[in-house]
């Protein structure tokens, strides 16, 4: 919030007083006219007047000397050496150190005073070691100097001032005062000021004559305390828009729990694949096991039993021109329930349904699907790994697709995210062949960074579903978290996803604007 210049009651009066004093004589020295006003009050009052051009002022800085307690004592009782002299003058026989101390009553005064008195040749020592006065009359210059300082707050001789300061008898401090002149809009009274334009003023027309308090343009405006969307969801929305722009249909990803069949077997991931280890995948203890794959709606007339058989055959014995993995495929293993490790389980389900569609030529229709949703991995949690993250996945099914087309598509897709000049690296993935890791040059890191994975789904997977041999399907994926972390400069994923997120971070996260250079 930008508060109007603050005005307290006392500075209100002071401002009026300044105007009155200035009317009588100018320039006005604040130290003369208002000796008791504090610097802060004066400055506030003057700023207020100056901002209205009623006065102008210069700040004067000067040094002031003040007495230390020891100096106060000297003003009252004389300097230490004078007191030593006086005590000795009164004692005709002279005094021993001890007697002198008793006479003066301050060991410290004796210690410093006798040395100084010797130097001034005011006193001397008798043969029996006693002190005795030798001067007739002395002039206590130290006391005089200090008295001068006490009265004038300074001393005409800078050397003496420095000497007293060195002897720790005085200290100096900087004093600010003001030299005040009338300003062009000088008046005796501060006009009444409005802080804001109000409905009443508009109704009454008071705004025409009113004076407005100046607004502080150097401060921020009022905090909005508004609601906010989560940065991950903001990036998600940008990505969804990219998919919609390119004609993609959103897949129903409302299945955290999947069977091994859909999550792995349908994708031609063999049952001994490390991804199926307990170390990597969350298995479900309750409920116990999935049912055999089956239609989930009455209009789904596909033969799921045949599909199950195809999947088994392609793993165990080979089919569709593939020699298969040639291992005893287990139906029980396939019906084990897992938390989906990727949304590709959903893609498999969608492609299986796609195989039943019929276009004008009697063949399955081309399709573009996408989803952005949560997936689960039994990871050990650290700064870059959580047991949950969001997978962004796209699928294109069509006839006559080529790898060059896939790469060109990726160039357009990632180009919309602001990533250009992609490089593709051969990679391995059990359900895509060819598989391509996608890299883009990262200006900040000065090197190629992996931005996603892509490939053509294997024939073993697609033909088991009943898709025709010449329908090819691209799939690609990336995580939602990684581009978001890069966008918002976050290094720890736990600060982004999960309950450890800082609400002020959520509130303060700017819009995403992917693709903006």
């Amino acid at each position: 919030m930008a508060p109007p210049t603050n005005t307290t009651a006392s500075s209100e009066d002071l401002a009026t007083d300044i105007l009155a004093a200035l009317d009588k004589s100018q320039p006005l020295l604040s130290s003369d006219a208002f000796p008791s006003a504090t610097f802060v009050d004066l400055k506030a009052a003057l700023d207020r007047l100056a901002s209205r051009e009623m006065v102008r002022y210069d700040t004067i800085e000067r040094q002031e000397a003040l007495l230390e307690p020891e100096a106060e004592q000297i003003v009252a009782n004389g300097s230490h050496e004078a007191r030593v002299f006086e005590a000795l003058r009164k004692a005709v026989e002279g005094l021993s150190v001890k007697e002198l101390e008793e006479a003066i009553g301050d060991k410290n005064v004796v210690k410093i005073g006798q040395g100084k008195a010797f130097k001034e040749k005011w006193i001397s020592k008798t043969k029996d070691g006693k002190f005795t006065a030798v001067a007739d009359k002395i002039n206590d210059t130290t006391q005089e100097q200090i008295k001068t300082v006490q009265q004038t707050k300074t001393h005409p001789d800078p050397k003496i001032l420095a000497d007293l300061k060195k002897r720790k008898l005085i200290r100096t401090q900087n004093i600010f005062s003001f030299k005040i002149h009338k300003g062009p809009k000088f008046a005796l009274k501060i006009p009444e000021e409005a802080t804001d334009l109000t409905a009443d003023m508009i109704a009454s027309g008071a705004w025409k004559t009113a004076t407005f308090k100046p607004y502080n343009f150097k401060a921020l405006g009022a905090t909005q305390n508004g609601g906010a969307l989560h940065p991950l969801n903001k990036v998600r929305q940008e990505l969804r828009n990219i998919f919609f722009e390119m004609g993609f249909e959103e897949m129903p990803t409302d299945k955290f729990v999947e069977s091994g069949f859909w999550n792995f077997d349908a994708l031609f991931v063999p049952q001994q694949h490390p991804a199926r280890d307990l170390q990597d995948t969350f298995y479900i203890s309750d409920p116990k096991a999935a049912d055999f794959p089956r239609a989930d709606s009455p209009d789904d007339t596909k033969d799921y039993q045949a599909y199950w058989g195809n999947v088994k055959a392609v793993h165990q014995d080979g089919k569709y021109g593939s020699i298969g993995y040639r291992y005893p495929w287990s139906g029980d293993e396939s019906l084990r329930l897992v938390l989906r490790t990727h949304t590709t389980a959903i893609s498999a389900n969608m492609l299986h349904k796609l195989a039943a569609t019929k276009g004008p030529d009697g063949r399955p229709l081309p399709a573009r699907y996408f989803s952005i949703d949560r997936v689960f991995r039994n990871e050990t949690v650290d700064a870059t790994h959580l047991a949950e993250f969001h997978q962004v996945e796209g699928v294109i099914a069509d006839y006559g697709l080529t790898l060059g087309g896939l790469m060109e598509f990726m160039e357009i897709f990632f180009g919309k995210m602001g990533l250009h000049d992609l490089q593709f690296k051969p990679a391995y993935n059990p359900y895509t062949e060819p598989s391509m890791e996608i890299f883009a040059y990262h200006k900040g890191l000065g090197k190629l960074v992996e931005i996603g994975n892509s490939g053509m789904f294997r024939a073993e997977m697609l033909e088991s579903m009943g898709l025709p041999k010449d329908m090819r399907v691209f799939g690609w994926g990336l995580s939602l978290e990684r581009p978001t972390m890069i966008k918002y400069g976050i290094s720890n994923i736990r600060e982004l996803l999960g309950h450890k997120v800082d609400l002020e971070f959520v509130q303060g996260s700017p819009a995403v604007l992917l693709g903006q250079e």
Partner: protein
Amino acid sequence: MPTINVDKYRLFEELGEQFTPDTFQQLCFEFGIELDKDTEEDETRPKDQAPELAIEIPANRYDMLCFEGIAMYLNIFRGKQTTPNFKLLDIPEDKMQKITVSPETEKVRPYVAGAILRNLKFTPERYESFIGLQDKLHQNLARQRTLVSIGTHDLDTIQGPFTYEALAPKDINFVPLNQTKKMNGQELMEFYESDKHLGRYLHIIRDKPVYPVIFDANKTVCSLPPIINSDHSKITLDTKNVFIEITATDQTKLDIVCNIMVAMFSKYCDEPFTIEPVKIVSEHNGTTRVTPSLHTRVMDVEVDYLNQCCGLQESPESLCKLLGKMAYTAVPDKEDAKLIKVSVPPTRADVLHACDVMEDVAIAYGYNNLPRTSPNQASTIGKPLMINKVSDIVRNECAMAGWIEVMPLILCSHEENFEWLNRVDDGQTAVKLANPKSVEYQVVRTSLLPGLLKTLRENKSVRLPLKITEVADIALKDETKERKARNERHFAAAFYGKTSGFEVVHGLLDRILSMLRVSFVTHEEDLHGKSIDYKVAENPSEEKGNGYFIKEIDEPTFFQGRAAAIYLRLGGETRRIGEFGVLHPTVLEKFDLRYPVSVLEVNLEVFL
């Protein structure tokens, strides 16, 4: 992906080229392996150690898990060598070494294969690589020796024919590798119980009635697979003739391992790439055969398929040439111009289908050299999912109303989901995980509340009041579904402040439902903010119109008298869609919250 460490300069010597870091990186990128680390500049590398390259190998390239494999494939790729012609020594079957398999092995580890490398020359580097490959194969393809395990022996210390038997643990007696004391199977299990390296393999056979064992002709124990070899037949740097026996529970993987082991190291035999076969006599299960198979599979691959997928228009000859770079031997089919005959070397176990060959054409051509074509084929129409549209309406309305969106985790502990909310697990609701690594992940949440409350707990230093919302899925057990569970989209909000904020949460409910075109049905008077379709009913539950109403509830999650269930009536059907209220102080205590909290949770699926 497995990582293989190789001596940098030995590899460069083998490749016949001194690469710069950039050019080697580029080679790896094009071929599809990954240079993970180069210790050349690593200051922590001991002075007496040669610089190493750590290379990541794709998980299906078991034939590249050693120095020899990496060097060979990169040399073939770069046109520096051709694929070796691996062959079996031509000896009649009755002159072959034999392993006779006893039917008892069915009970524990039914399959075995064997091979002999004659007149092999080990050097310290080769020896290390030989051991290293066995180790990598054990870890990866063999799934920690469960599927396959390899034993290697100095053939000159033992004598064939061999037998593969399965005996009761106490009947197997031998001195294990690098030990001095003879022990039986039982003692051996105890001996290696706490062994860091071998301890993790004991479970594979420990509780079996019989343990597998390889004997030579004199009943000398060669090995106790998959645990350990005998000390008697161990190989050394001076070993000339190596007997390899491999046992398995999976025959396909057994053959793959056998082929790879002998292919990689037959290079160092007097007669390179020639392997002496072993006859396996296994009548009881019909697997009598000669191993290794070293079978070169010939595939007929369509020229059009390769060209079309890659977007190329290469001649059959030129495709064959490209395939040569990937270790295939390919020739155009003499009878059918549309086909090429692709011979897959016995080491390339990753090649299952023509698509694998197609990928290799693309790699040989260079992924980044492939002609880019328009990605547009058929035109499709974009379409959002309806539940996400509903969710977005709710999310945006909440943000507009000043609430902050949060995204807690979906997995939580059982306590957080039930006990801490004073809720009872009826066993019919929550999906439970079998193998979580942490108690934080025991169940799939059945409510959005635990995540919201944990988010509040972590944000206690932020200026009050805190107003947070989430629109996301929970999961519920559902026996009627194929996967025995279903997701449900929920909307939840929590208010945390010095006062309960009950009316604030109530107001959010009214706002959101009115934005979803659902009106409030009540018999109360003096209700403000009447919308156009606002209705007044004396008894809401009997009224026929659509709308929502609330009814006080007494549930232990909430503070008494400060909670209500939300009912939605659509098309004459009334159902409870959620609840809201002030949380019970005991709930706050569990979630370590000091101020009152009001929450709201609604099922959004009903608005579809």
